[in-house]
């Protein structure tokens, strides 16, 4: 049976963080209820569209999915179980933020089959948490973490952020040592991006430009400081048994996030909920981003209209059919984000031609620049290649006229 992964989007937050540009916001209980109902309709609808697939992972992300109450979460999980054949060993993750969970909630998660938590910490320093506009303190996080462990969660990710305004090596070190001491199975270390449309953008837009240009900054770490923060994170986590398997992701032995690697290896996934993205049948799609339109369209879904040939959804707002060229590009720039890189024979198996036939020049140049190596039949980025991954990965975008036969 074909396998697929599911992403479920819960766009609700207690309060939107100042740096966040994800599709999320603060909504009242009625809206949450209406959204959950709509989501369940979409789940049922897509379940019918996609008969006979086994679900190998589910990731419930947000927003703050843990902000949903138990009844709504249960309703959603039941809908998923009812509509999809979820493998018994499937990795099922839910994102939680400190202060939005209770003992009961964790217990119900366990009961519903959720077996992995991703807890948003970002920093162990309360001043940094305040600066980020987070609603919790470090103390509060500790409480949540403790509760999670005691509730029987043995696969936990903790999110931390680097490159915060005013972040020194010492401050980041403090965060890392605190987190490491808790021994979570997985740590995601994201670099702060100052995104347009966020309060952070208004505060730091000039700095962001300076940072990008390699100039002296006022609040944000300059490029060199950012580099040192990033390298220190890598080094410290590695020393404590967290190996880096992707640019921002570290895990203890055997605890890499399966769902995460689905994205980088181009395995199919179905996005459910507001604005959720899918990769399915060599199409990239994304759902409507307006919550009212989303609910309206879900209410109009009729269970009957199943197309024999194509999977379609009235919720899709954007549909991009991937060409052979798109697929090759993605194979490379996604695959190379992972430390283990891409396998030569996988490329040949997928595209029917050798990797060198398409990317010979790029591979040669990147190897000459010591950004890429070929070892054991795999191409992967060197440490410097990872440091300069934007530069390196951009090389794999092909010109329109490239001959791909």
């Amino acid at each position, binding site marked *: 049976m074909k396998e697929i992964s599911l*992403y479920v989007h819960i766009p609700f937050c207690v309060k939107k963080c100042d740096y966040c540009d994800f599709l999320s916001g603060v909504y009242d209980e009625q809206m949450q209820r209406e959204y959950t109902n709509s989501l369940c309709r979409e789940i049922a609808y897509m379940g019918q569209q996609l008969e006979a697939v086994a679900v190998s992972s589910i990731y419930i*992300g947000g927003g703050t999915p843990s902000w949903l109450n138990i009844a709504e979460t249960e309703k959603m999980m039941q809908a998923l179980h009812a509509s999809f054949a979820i493998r018994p060993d499937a990795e099922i993750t839910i994102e939680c933020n400190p202060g939005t969970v209770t003992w009961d909630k964790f217990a119900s998660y366990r009961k519903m089959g959720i077996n992995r938590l991703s807890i948003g910490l970002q920093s162990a320093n309360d001043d940094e948490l305040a600066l980020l506009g987070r609603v919790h303190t470090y103390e509060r996080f500790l409480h949540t973490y403790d509760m999670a462990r005691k509730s029987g969660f043995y696969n936990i990710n903790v999110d931390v952020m*680097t490159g915060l305004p005013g972040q020194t090596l010492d401050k980041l070190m403090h965060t890392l040592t605190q987190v490491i001491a808790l021994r979570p199975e997985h740590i*995601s*270390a*994201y*670099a*702060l*991006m100052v995104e347009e449309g966020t309060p952070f953008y208004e505060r730091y837009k000039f700095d962001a430009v300076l940072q990008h*240009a*390699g100039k002296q900054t006022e609040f944000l770490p300059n*490029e*060199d400081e*950012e*580099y040192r923060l*990033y390298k220190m994170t890598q080094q410290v986590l590695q020393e404590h048994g967290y190996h880096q398997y992707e*640019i*921002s*992701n570290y895990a203890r032995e055997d605890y890499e996030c399966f769902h*995460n690697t689905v*994205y980088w290896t181009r395995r199919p*996934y179905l*996005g459910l909920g507001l604005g*959720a*993205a*899918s*990769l399915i049948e060599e199409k*990239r799609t*994304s759902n409507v981003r307006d919550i009212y339109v989303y609910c309206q369209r879900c209410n109009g879904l009729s269970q009957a209209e199943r197309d024999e040939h194509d999977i379609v959804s009235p919720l899709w707002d*954007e549909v*991009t059919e991937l060409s052979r060229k798109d697929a090759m*590009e*993605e194979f490379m*720039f*996604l695959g190379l984000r992972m430390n283990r890189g891409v396998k030569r024979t996988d490329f040949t198996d997928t595209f029917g031609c050798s990797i060198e036939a398409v990317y010979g020049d790029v591979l040669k140049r990147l190897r000459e*620049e010591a*950004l890429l190596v070929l070892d054991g039949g795999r191409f992967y980025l060197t440490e410097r290649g*990872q*440091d*300069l*991954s*934007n*530069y390196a*990965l*951009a*090389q794999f*975008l092909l010109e329109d006229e490239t001959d791909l036969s």
Partner: protein
Amino acid sequence: MAIDQSRIRNFCIVAHIDHGKSTLADRIIEMTGLLTEREMQAQVLDNMDLERERGITIKSQAVRTIYKAKDGQEYVFNLIDTPGHVDFNYEVSRSLAACDGAILVVDAAQGIEAQTLANVYLALDHDLDVLPVINKIDLPSADPQRVKDEIEDVIGLEAQDAPMISAKTGLNVEEVLEQIVTRLPAPEGDSAAPLQALIFDSLYDAYKGVIVFCRIKEGTMRAGDEVCMMATGASAEVVEVGYFGAGQFIPCEELSAGMVGYMTASIKNVKDTRVGDTITHKNQPCAEPLPGYKKVNPMVYCGLYPADGAKYPDLRDALEKLQLNDAALQFEPETSVALGFGFRCGFLGLLHLEIIQERLEREYHLDLVTTAPGVVYRVHKTDGTMISLTNPSNLPEPSEIDYMEEPVVEAEIMVTSEYIGAIMDLCQERRGTYISMEYMEESRALLKYTLPLNEIIYDFFDALKSRSRGYASFDYEMKGYVRSDLVKLDILINKEEVDALSFIVFSGTAYERGRKMCEKLKEEIPRHLFEIPIQAAIGSKVIARETVKAMRKDVLAKCYGGDITRKKKLLEKQKEGKKRMRQVGNVEIPQEAFMSVLKLDED
């Protein structure tokens, strides 16, 4: 219909920039009933988009209107608009030659400015009767009496009866119309004499070919006449003659002595119909051409390159089309190691350059890279020959150079007394030689300096304005060449000379400019995988150096979940950025870098 010569008035309006010349022209056209207000686009005469946006008149234009005067007679007014900028001085002088009188517009608050003087002297040189008009009398700061006195004292024109108007509101413009009839002369000339017509402008029209704007001095021109241009030697059969409505050409039977109008003759290139040339009949030519014709030569050169090398043929086509309308624009193909194929283009001045550049970008949608503009240097070689150097890359080896000369101008700067010191400092910094200073009145002086052209083409005007808080005005004319100590400054990026960044500079300021260039380039060149030295050198001697550090980190660590499209867009943006770069050796230089060095003095 034959028009009685005594009821024709051919005139122009001269003024300092912003004193209200175009506004007055609009009012005159409006009030003589040629156009209804609805038809009236603001500033009818300036019909290029660019002109309207910049509020300046680039090419001269003409319009004919009918005015019914208080004496009950109808008069034909031919209003010839003249460019206001010094770059187009020659065109101004030819436009003036087509007139019999001039209206001098002076701002009631600002009084006489440098261009007022330059233009009014030019008008007097052409024996035009000058009718002073005081404009903007509705401004709170207006002081018309002071301005009248100034006109009498400084220029020596009777000004007590000058109409005091507001061109903006139309106040007293009627008075101007009456005085045009009573105080400006009617044209003279014999309609039966051999044809003698002055070309004062021409433009290319895709349907009619070149349209020649002319003033008939003697004789008569009709459709079907065989004519020739006395200076260029081009000949043609006249297809159509006519006069200028507002924004349109109105054919008529004939143009006779004293009239201003146009003719078409299926001429394909404006080069054949140069401004200042004389048109005469091929079979019955006039004895001699009208005086004053000269071929205008470009003063400022720069390289223009298409940002996308594939657009080279498009750039050539566009330049050719612009040249159809602009005989002063010159271009020759050239190649640069850094920029590929492009053109070395010659312009009358920096404004002319900017206008051409903007028109290429706006009307022809070309993305351009411009090299630093330079003047034409004279290089006297040891073998006794002399070359006119328009491209620094062509400078001969130092051993072959005997000496070099650079063009200089005589500049007239009018400034209020409190800023005299600051302006004199500026002129000194720009290697100026003091000639004289005269007080126009107690609070204002006219400074005269000789200045190297190369020192004023970049930003002199801006510097002048900022150091005088806008109270200085400026005009100049070419004075020829003087011997000067000049060197070629080369820029090396990662040890490779970038030809497009080389320029000629006075040796005394070479260090300073070299240092600034390196600083600016350091800002503009993005970091690469390796360290990049940027050096300024004279010959083999390095005089300034900066370093672009190697790039250490360029990671997009943030995870966008399944939203791969967004991730790809960011990578595409990164790659797109590289496309806009120029490869020199193994360094990629953004196009902006070539332009940024033109603006060294901005910060």
